[in-house]
């Protein structure tokens, strides 16, 4: 008997028993590793698969998650930011996806630049972590085990994209995890004194759903998918990843740093919106953020 069969039987044995007398009819069931086994009907009950930490650290070797961000369609609607904060139960000051107002010099065109974690294929943050609290999975995701993180912040220093945020205080993370997934995959609850960041929502992927930011975007800016399958979707359209990148001349941000991100950008050409629209209807606090950046660009190039 193979080791796989043992673990399969072990899983079945873990099912809840029911006290129904008289039904000792045997039925055939298939274990997760494809072995056919027999068990009495009374012992069968539905069980949801709990994702252990070990499993969460490994990921699915048959997948390679990527995100494509269409800069031509972003108008700083900020729905992705809000839904991400709500979903991960983050306090207002923590933004795992940030939207930058980019204008490289006085004469170059401005554009809105949503920036999640890039889940790099050569992640500097993972290299420097002294305890393996942040790690790279087989499916390309870079996640954080906030039960292991010691809060040294070295990963924040190593990340050139400022994608990581530190949980400075205790409050704001009180929501419990769903009990089915390892907190590594849900990133809930965040722990004070540790580092958090965009996790590409692997818990949603396991349920066959898209990350919330993808669905929340009213303009279909964000595409998410599996590079091995060569498909990405923004919730409305599903397209071939390679074709999208080829046709729209997709690129990765700051390729010169050698971090090899899993996030691709489509250049802001033939835009759907005037970038100035992005400043409309913003709360004052958020608009002021960009004012600082805008005045600085003017000052520097003068």
């Amino acid at each position, binding site marked *: 008997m193979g080791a796989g069969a043992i673990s399969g039987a072990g899983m079945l044995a873990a099912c809840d028993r029911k006290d129904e007398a008289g039904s000792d009819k045997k039925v055939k069931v298939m274990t997760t590793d494809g072995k056919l086994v027999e068990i009495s009907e009374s012992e069968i009950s539905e069980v949801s698969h709990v994702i252990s930490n070990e499993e969460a650290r490994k990921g699915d070797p048959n997948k390679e998650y990527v995100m494509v961000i269409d800069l031509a369609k972003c108008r700083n609607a900020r729905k992705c930011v809000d839904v991400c904060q709500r979903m991960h139960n983050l306090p207002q*000051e923590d933004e795992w996806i*940030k939207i*930058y*107002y980019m204008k490289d010099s006085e004469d170059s065109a401005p554009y809105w630049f949503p*920036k999640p974690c890039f889940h790099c294929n050569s992640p*500097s943050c993972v*290299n*420097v*972590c*002294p*305890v*393996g*609290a942040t790690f790279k999975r087989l499916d390309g995701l870079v996640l954080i085990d906030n039960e*292991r*993180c*010691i*809060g*040294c*912040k*070295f990963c*924040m*220093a*190593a990340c*050139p*994209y*400022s994608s990581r*945020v*530190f*949980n*400075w*205080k*205790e409050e704001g993370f009180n929501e419990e995890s769903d009990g089915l997934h390892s907190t590594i995959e849900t990133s809930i609850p965040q*722990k*004070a*004194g*540790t*580092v958090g960041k965009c996790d590409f929502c692997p818990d949603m992927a396991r349920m066959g759903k898209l990350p919330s930011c993808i669905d929340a975007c009213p303009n279909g800016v964000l595409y998410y998918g599996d590079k091995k399958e060569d498909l990405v979707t923004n919730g409305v359209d599903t397209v071939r990843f390679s074709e999208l990148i080829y046709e729209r001349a997709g690129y990765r941000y*700051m390729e010169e*740093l050698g971090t090899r991100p899993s996030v691709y950008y489509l250049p802001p050409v033939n835009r759907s919106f005037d970038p100035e629209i992005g400043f409309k209807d913003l709360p004052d*606090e958020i608009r*002021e*953020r*960009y004012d*600082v*950046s805008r005045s*600085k660009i003017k000052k520097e190039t003068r």
Partner: protein
Amino acid sequence: MKLSDTTVRELKRHAHQLESTSTFEKFMVVFMVLFVIAGIPALYIQYVEGHIVTGMRDNVFWGVYIVNFIFYIGISYAGALISGILYLLQVEWRKPIIRIAEMITVISTILGPIYILLCMGRLDRLHHLVQYARIQSPITWDVIAITTYLIGSVIFLYLATIQDFAILRDYDGLKVGKWRKPIYKFLAVSYQDTERQRNLIHRGITIMSIIIIPLAVLVHSVLSWIFGMTLRPGWHSTIFAPYFVVAAVYSGTGVLIVAMWVYRKLYHLEDIITIKHFKYLGIILLVLGSLYGYFTFAEYLTNWYGSEKWELELIYKLFSLDEFGWMFIFAAFVGVLLPIIIIAVPAFRTINSISFASAIVVIAMWVKRYIIIIPTLETPLLPIQETRIEYIHYSMTWIEWLLTISGLAVFCLFFYLYSKFVPIIPISETSETDSKE
């Protein structure tokens, strides 16, 4: 063992602080203890409330704690390099100052890592550093290097003190508390000054002084790589390891001279710590200062001339008098040129002026560490688009001030208390010299 007359005379003359405490000393101790105590509520508040009570935020996520960490590890070079090298070269004038140097090393190597602990978000998980250690991480290199260095320095200091412990154990005229004699006896490990024991100790010290030099170089290189290995402007530099090493010896020598000045005044050691020591160490300081100035020049010239976007942004922050300009002027010009001028011109070479120059060096090197850390973190590759001022600019909170000052008080206090327990002038060594003369 039987003590010679010279040894007893040496003890009376240069280790009298073991037996008596002046009012000034008592006053200073109370003063320092008050500062140490002041740090306790700060420590408690930070422990309970978390890092939110510091000035650190998402962009500038490392602050003055890491500055202090580099600073203390830096001054620990005094003992390692100065006493190690001087011992190996058998320089005769090293004898009265060698223990001061080694004490600086040990105390600052203990104190430095405490600051790195203050920087950690989850102190309760400290054991993870061992449990889940990953050798790829420069922090693991640091943990290994600093631990080894600390053990090495303690052994070095201890080996060089055994003979003095034996003297203190066997000197019956010593008027100290009764509890001390058993400790001296224990620490003297039945040393009887036989030919064989003397050779063993001598060989031990020689081996340690050889080991401690590359170890010290390694420690500061590894420390610089915490910054050098990242892709940030001002940090990602191949020059960083040697630059840190030179800056460290420079500041260590500065602290050594200041400590010599203080002990000389405090314990009236004018006859044994003389202008000669200040001059010789001053010249070492001059050479190191020139080296450090050269490195600084090379580093900033290359970055400025190359004028890469982020490097330039950083350099303009350092040059701008509204931002870090004054600190930069102090660390890169005053902290280099002033000591060089004072020491290079023979007329200026007095004990007080050399000590003053050294104090300037020490402060400048602290400021230098500050402007290595903070401006770079305020200059990330993606722009900081923020309205909250504390997320844009770092400033120390009173908690950080208190813990910094408290740490300094701890350093001084330990330094002082050690000198009350062990002669700071190595009696065994100096009486040897005396009897030869």
